[in-house]
């Protein structure tokens, strides 16, 4: 059974949506001042999301918890700012992941069913905890880059994929994130408008977003003018908080390391990425810098490789003379 507390913990559930619908509230209703508690909590949630922090569930007032989540999300959509929605989706993913890892297995089965229509079953074989249908598994799992998420590294039998609890939590929480992001594209959500009275209350939030993004932008890189267009393009995406592919990340990291940026500097630069995971990022950067595992320091891929993976964009006249982005940098730095 999914309790009210579960709905507060996992507000993406369909049950939570129908629970909220009972209140019959629209965005306009929040102008009246009657719901200040909910509004304050919603603003708090946005603030935490911007700062990249998880706000723990307050179980003493579950209705406020549930409604404020819906309001926070509506405000994020209403601001027409994809960056904040991505931040929010990210934090929700992290929060759900933590909660789900600690959840009872039976409960996870209910959550998966109600939230995404997935048919998890308990399994106790070869160290696996659950099984789920192959096609449902493949909705999300391919989004993870690591080898441990490849289908070929799971036990697959009779149309079912066997999977450990920790990975189920990861899969479900990723589905939560994607659900939030996808909704941004819905017409109804695009048309959403924040009433004047509420918009005023968002002033501080907007300021916070701006300063947060400015801090990130200040972390500029040496000799900006000498950076080749392919690298600038990826860096721009990173600054805007857009998700970038693994290959793009690798390329930028290796490039910046090679022109003398420190691990720390690059780490700070990446903090702005929407799905930023501190431990993983630090590990990756160090790895590429050659501090972990192997001693080799990586160099970014050459132009030919970048071209074939679609990362070579906005080529300029200097590009004609070079075969490698680092070569581009060397040539142009001299001229600056």
């Amino acid at each position, binding site marked *: 059974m999914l309790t009210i507390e579960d709905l507060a913990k996992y507000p993406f559930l369909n049950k939570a949506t129908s629970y909220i619908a009972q209140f019959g509230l629209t965005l306009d209703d929040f102008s009246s001042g009657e719901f200040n508690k909910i509004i304050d909590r919603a603003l708090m949630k946005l603030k935490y999301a911007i700062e990249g922090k998880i706000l723990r569930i307050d179980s003493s007032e579950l209705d406020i918890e549930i409604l404020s989540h819906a309001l926070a999300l509506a405000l994020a959509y209403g601001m027409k700012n994809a960056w904040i929605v991505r931040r929010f989706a990210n934090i929700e993913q992290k929060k759900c992941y933590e909660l789900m890892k600690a959840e009872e297995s039976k409960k996870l089965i209910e959550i998966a069913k109600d939230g995404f229509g997935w048919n998890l079953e308990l399994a106790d074989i*070869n160290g696996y905890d659950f099984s789920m249908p192959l*096609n449902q598994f493949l909705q999300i799992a391919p989004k993870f880059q690591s080898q*441990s998420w*490849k*289908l*070929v*590294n799971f*036990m697959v*039998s009779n*149309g079912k994929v066997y999977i450990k609890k920790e990975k189920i939590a990861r899969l479900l929480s990723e589905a939560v994130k994607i659900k939030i992001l996808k909704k941004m594209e819905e017409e109804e959500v695009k048309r959403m408008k924040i009433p004047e009275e509420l918009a005023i209350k968002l002033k501080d939030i907007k300021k916070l977003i701006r300063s947060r993004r400015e801090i990130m932008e200040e972390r500029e890189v040496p000799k900006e003018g000498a950076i080749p267009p392919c690298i600038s393009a990826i860096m721009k995406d990173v600054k805007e908080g857009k998700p970038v592919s693994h290959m793009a990340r690798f390329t930028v990291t290796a490039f910046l390391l090679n022109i003398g940026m420190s691990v720390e500097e690059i780490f700070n630069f990446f903090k702005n990425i929407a799905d930023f995971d501190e431990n993983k990022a630090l590990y990756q950067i160090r790895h590429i810098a050659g501090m972990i595992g192997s001693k080799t320091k990586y160099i970014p891929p050459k132009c030919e490789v970048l071209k074939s993976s679609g990362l070579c964009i906005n080529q300029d006249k200097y590009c004609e003379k070079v075969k490698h982005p680092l070569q581009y940098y060397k040539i142009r730095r001299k001229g600056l």
Partner: protein
Amino acid sequence: MNIIFQAFKRYYSNINPSDLHIIELEKREIALIPFKEERMIRHISFKDLTSLKNYLENNVPLHLYYSSAYYGNPQAEDMNAKCWEGADLIFDVDADHIPTDCKNLHDKWFCLNCNEYGFGVPPEDCPKCKQRKIDVTTWICEKCLDIAKEEVLKLIDEYLVPDFGINSKDIEICFSGHRGYHIHIQLEDFRKLSGDGRREIADYVRGIGIDLRAHGLRLINGIVFGPDIRDPGWRGRIARAFYEYISKSSIEELEKILGKKAELIISKREKILDSMMMNGTKWFIPKGIGIKKISKIVEVAIKRNLCNIDERVTIDIKRLIRYPNSLHGKTGLKVCRLSYSNLNKFDPLKDAVVFKSGSIKIYVKEVPKIRMEDYELGPIKNEVLEVPESLAIYLICKGAAEMGK
């Protein structure tokens, strides 16, 4: 080409519309290559089988295709306006992608730039002038066809049925009309899969990216643990492949992997195999052979289990694929639809033959040894002779013969 056109026209005029049945025809894009020009005609769609049949009769195709995808507007030219609704899951098994020795006997490549030529699998660039202008002539050969068929059976028996849980009656197999087979899975469950999801499926059957640790191969306190031969999925496949390799391989083969230590395996062979049979996950491995060497053996051992498919076909969610019961323009053979149970006895060089009226006199430029139905020919060069219609059409389609005078 006139004789081919006439034959194909006859075929499409006499075809029973119900033989053109495909699931949800009205949602599929139909495409064809006509006789007159090389250009593909795309973005056509049909509401019913009769209108399709009538169209084909009047616009006889040299090659006929349909989309693996289901579209809201299959006739729209813009991909976004087509409204993709899903796609069948498709596997393409083709002798072109499977290395076979006999290709050296029947496949020839030719450099259009410098006239260099050679046999077998063609190089990407000409080894002499380095240009990428290689032309190939490939021939249907029984051995290649058999190998392709075995590959299909492996895919179905080892992967699609036991691992993916697909019922063999839900598997449609089509002989491509040339050197391979297409396997279509039209189940609702797989239709919505993204390209990424399909890549995972392709990688799964090709064994790409396997991490043996994830399947239980590890060293704990000096004891080797591995998957159980009775395990399902890749776990069991790894264990069984290792088991089989150890039981069958010669010392020479093992030496290639283990060097001098191969002897250790040979002398303890029985004990290793017994341990896998009896203890399941606790493998007995002689001292001195580390986990790295075992992984090496496994990597070699599982090669036989991997499916040789053209992964691009599986990954592509908007693929055009040969139309069942159409004719292949390079052979004149029928793209036969087969069920799992009649795949085994299917003989493409007999069962896919449609033109069987009399014999025709042709001038043959050059052919290796080939067979069509019960008629064998070649290798011959520059000869005029009378052959059965099916063979004449095949050779003319291939461009290896002309009508004889």
